[in-house]
């Protein structure tokens, strides 16, 4: 066999295997989507696979008219925005100051922070702390305890350290203070890194479920994930009055899953390249 033919065979088998992996990633979604759109009869007799059978959008009508669902979605979006703003601010403050080599004591503070990446109090002490601070059943319980990720801070810190020093020195000679240097020089230069960190925080907060389950019992403060968990696992009735009894719960669950995925699907195509470049920056230089 010639080398050329061998290469050709290799290329196509690589494509084939990756294609299988791609399908394995897609099929679950296609199934849930078609289930959410199929007719009751098709669902009950388990005929649905990756194409909807007997088109039907009743399930979506229920989900989209359910005040509780929409409220949770809206509340979670606000929560994510506030969280990202705060987390980003705190992370920038730590990353910038700790990237200044002349700062005395920065290594001790850095060590203090890095240690918490490897050792923590645990779930119960975390819970007790939140309880003792009277944060249970407040949105702050979902914001303050995870206000900064040391890992993200280190990624950003190494990004700051790799910016050319001469720019800051020039600004320093022009009489800029450290705060002005940060706001006028460092931040504008760091937009890609900041975008990446912001996105990491946003996806974390959007998907994180544990703290909401632990700290929130008031239904008004349920995040969308906690709400979905109840719909999927406890078959909790939707809060709206127009619940259609003859709708199979599978269709409702499927529609709820799709509902909870929509925000990610909308932003995902735009965000993906930032994530990838950001993760790469952090891993190579961090």
């Amino acid at each position: 066999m010639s080398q050329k033919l061998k290469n050709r065979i290799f290329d196509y088998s690589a494509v084939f295997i990756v294609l299988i992996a791609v399908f394995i990633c897609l099929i679950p979604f296609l199934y849930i989507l078609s289930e959410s759109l199929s007719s009751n009869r098709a669902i009950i007799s388990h005929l649905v696979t990756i194409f909807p059978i007997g088109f039907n959008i009743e399930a979506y009508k229920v989900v989209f008219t359910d005040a509780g669902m929409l409220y949770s979605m809206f509340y979670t979006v606000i929560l994510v925005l506030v969280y990202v703003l705060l987390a980003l601010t705190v992370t920038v403050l730590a990353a910038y100051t700790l990237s200044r080599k002349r700062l005395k004591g920065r290594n001790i503070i850095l060590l203090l922070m890095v240690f918490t990446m490897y050792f923590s109090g645990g779930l119960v002490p975390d819970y007790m702390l939140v309880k003792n601070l009277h944060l249970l059943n407040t949105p702050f319980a979902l914001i303050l305890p995870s206000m900064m990720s040391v890992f993200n801070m280190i990624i950003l810190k190494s990004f700051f350290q790799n910016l050319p020093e001469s720019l800051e020195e020039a600004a320093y000679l022009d009489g800029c203070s450290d705060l002005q240097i940060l706001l006028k020089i460092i931040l504008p230069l760091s937009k890609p890194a900041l975008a990446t960190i912001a996105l990491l925080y946003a996806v974390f907060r959007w998907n994180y479920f544990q703290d909401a389950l632990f700290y929130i019992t008031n239904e008004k403060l349920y995040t969308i994930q906690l709400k979905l968990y109840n719909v999927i696992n406890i078959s909790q009735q939707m809060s709206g009055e127009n619940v259609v009894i003859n709708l199979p719960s599978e269709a409702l669950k499927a529609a709820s899953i799709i509902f909870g995925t929509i925000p990610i699907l909308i932003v995902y195509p735009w965000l993906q390249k930032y994530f990838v470049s950001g993760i790469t920056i952090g891993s190579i230089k961090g």
Partner: protein
Amino acid sequence: MKGMDGSTTVNKKNSIDRSLKKSKGLLFYIKRDIILYLMLVIPVAYILLFKYGSMYGIEIAFKDYNIFQGMNRSPWNNFATFKQIFATPQFYQVVRNTLVLNGLDLIVGFPAPIILAILINELVFKKFKRISQTILYLPHFLSWVIIGGIVAQLLSPTGMINSLITNMGGHALPFLTKKFAWVGTYTLVGAWQSAGWGTILYLAAMTGINKELYEAAEVDGAGRLRKIWHVTLPGIRPTIAILLILQLGNIMAIGFDRPFNLQNNLVMDFGDVISTFVYRIGIQSANFSIGAAVGLFQSIICLVFLLTSNYITKKLGEQGIW
């Protein structure tokens, strides 16, 4: 990282700093960098309050915590909590489950992104490469609540897979209902969620490999597989080593969201892990001391594993994580 900045100018600056230090005290530096120190107040306060403050709460693992007396006034109990958990069979069960599930993740979930990254790296059709990467990353962006819901719909006794099997005349498989099958499901779903995303680091490492090495290998008559074996794999070895230490170090640590959303009552013997156990016993049933003690046990074992695996990796001549 430090080596990268270790140019001579920096060394000079340091020596100037050092000579200044003798004549000027701490106050001088605080005065000079007052703005920086002020900017550090919020991050440091956050770490002290929420990270170290939480560590302070570990003391209830050594006390008979009583909600009315509070953390400080509850009596010390001479390790009675630890004696109690070490005498509970359920404790060993959740430790075993944690180790088994993480071990399987190591065997199945760890190599998966490496293999996938090598395949993606070999793809010659650029557009196909880009699109398939986009799709492969997607599961990473879903919450475990959503994935748990999808898995239940897909693999339950009446889910799509089993419907297909029974429609073709086969017997339904107990993906979620029998213990051993559930363990397999747990492992594969984990690989499904993270394999694509995990390729990013390896692909980044692969772009850093010197192209001349491939050319040299080709001159020596190496085929595609040989080039992967002798050039690509050694090229990503440091990345593999670091990620392996991290995962080995975390062999006792287990996230909460994944097991909690995948487990069900039928498989609790194999599916209950430390994090879900601590939640159920420590928080839901309010046995705070027991929950804190189990959590502390886990944290210490984790730290030991991490230090050991980092030490071994360094001995083997690879770069550790610090």
